[in-house]
């Protein structure tokens, strides 16, 4: 009846078939590879779709049409771009630190794929339901700054170095309030596991059930995730009017494409986290007590709910990018340390109080 359950049955069927054919250890290995490839393909396809969607949205916001030439309505534009980048030569500057220069894009990409591991796409569609899912994501996603610093340093370009340093300062400081925003929900759910957090929202999403503290946490999280993604208005690391392209100034071809891909993957992951933690993940829209409505909502499959919410947050991030001017580096840090962090800390206290008293809607 429900797609989420049928998906679960498909995975189970594949699992039992593999186990019957191969040795259990080998079957486990094959499953890991299959699952990883499936998720990476999904995300890459989504990233290509997202590039197209962003260019179209930006076009409409700016009284333009966006890409129109490749394919009907320019639908193949992103694919054509990927093909072009694949065929281009990857240039390495003469005086660069060659090993680091080549490793950096891989670090960034691998880190962004690693963050996909604990995400629950639908009921049962999850690579690894670890009990510290939220903690894992915050910990791993902060590794990407290492790749950016490597890229900036090894390029032997002052613009790249400035971009990387900005990015380092930015990501490290914005992780604080991002983490605090997640803690609010973790406290209310009483668990760090992603599936646990989703289950805790079975009778209402946290953003509705948890009212004021969760709304504040949600806004903070959206702001901090935009900052961690190095996207406008916080795109100081690549600030094209100041630093030409920041840390990836010297990259070309597929190496550049990997930075680009990782940026979009990170965008997905952080939107998915926000959708899971604040908007209930794959959980349909439920209101405790209204069984008729809840039952009706269950007809819409969980994966649709999940991607609907993800795309809503992605749309918000895209909307920010094409509306706002860029902050300056000192203002960026001021915003974090003088506004977001104090607000988040007070919010955590407030949320703890609410969680203790059980004052949910």
């Amino acid at each position, binding site marked *: 009846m429900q797609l989420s359950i049928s998906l679960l049955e498909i995975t189970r069927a594949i699992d039992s078939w593999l186990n019957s054919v191969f040795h259990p250890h080998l079957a486990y290995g094959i499953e890991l590879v299959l699952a990883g490839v499936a998720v990476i393909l999904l995300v890459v396809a989504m990233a290509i779709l997202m590039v197209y969607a962003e260019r179209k949205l930006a076009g*409409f916001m700016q009284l333009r049409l966006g890409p*129109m030439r490749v394919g009907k309505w320019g639908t193949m534009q992103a694919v054509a771009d990927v093909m072009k980048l694949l065929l281009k030569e990857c240039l390495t500057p003469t005086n660069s630190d060659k090993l680091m220069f080549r490793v950096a894009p891989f670090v960034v990409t691998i880190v962004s794929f690693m963050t996909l591991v604990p995400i629950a796409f639908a009921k049962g569609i999850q690579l690894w339901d670890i009990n510290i899912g939220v903690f894992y994501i915050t910990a791993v996603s902060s590794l990407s700054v290492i790749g950016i610093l490597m890229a900036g340093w090894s390029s032997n370009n002052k613009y790249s170095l400035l971009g990387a340093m900005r990015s380092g300062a930015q990501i490290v400081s914005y992780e604080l309030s991002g983490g605090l925003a997640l803690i609010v929900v973790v406290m209310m759910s009483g668990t760090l596991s992603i599936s646990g957090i989703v289950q805790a929202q079975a009778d209402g999403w946290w953003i509705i059930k948890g009212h004021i503290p969760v709304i504040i946490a949600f806004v903070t999280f959206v702001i901090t995730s935009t900052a961690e993604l190095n996207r406008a208005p916080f795109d100081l690391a690549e600030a094209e009017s100041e630093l030409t392209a920041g840390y990836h100034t010297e990259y070309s071809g597929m190496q550049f494409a990997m930075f680009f891909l990782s940026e979009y993957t990170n965008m997905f992951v952080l939107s998915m986290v926000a959708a899971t933690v604040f908007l209930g993940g794959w959980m349909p829209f439920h209101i405790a007590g209204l069984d008729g409505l809840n039952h009706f909502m269950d007809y819409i499959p969980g994966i649709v709910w999940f991607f609907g919410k993800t795309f809503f947050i992605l749309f918000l991030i895209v*909307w920010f990018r094409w509306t706002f001017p860029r902050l300056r580096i000192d203002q960026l840090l001021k915003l974090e340390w003088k506004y977001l962090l104090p607000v988040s800390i007070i919010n955590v206290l407030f949320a703890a109080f609410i969680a203790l008293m059980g004052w949910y809607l």
Partner: protein
Amino acid sequence: MNSIYQYFRAIWYGFSSLWKGMMLTGHYLVHPKKILTQQYPENRDTLYIPERFQGEVVLPHDENNEHLCTGCTICEMNCPNGSIKIITRSVETPEGKKKKELDEWVYHLGLCTFCGQCIDACPQNAIKMDNSFEHSVYDRKLLTKVLNQPGSKLKSAKK
């Protein structure tokens, strides 16, 4: 207390101003009719080009393959870039007088800045600006044009 009030006021002002900007871009996002983009090669038929648009210099010929240029070279003297070269030949009129006549009206489109001073200066109104604008060619030599058609001659004055 006042500083705390100012702090929250700043937050409120910040959010409301950002929201205003987002409403504007959002407004255009949902009003695709306001899009201004023109799809150029497709809309060639409906493209509006004002009649005064300065595309290139032409020397109009009438149905008898006659033009108005006497070869006086005033346009050549008035051209600031040297994009006009008038080559004349001397011919003998039936009465036996020697007379200068236009041989080739050489026009370097690549040097022309479309300032219109040649047209302004021409005493015969022999040349005018054309509206064509698709000038790109693969060879620079093709930008040098001879404007008078082969076999054309000066329009004889009405008697």
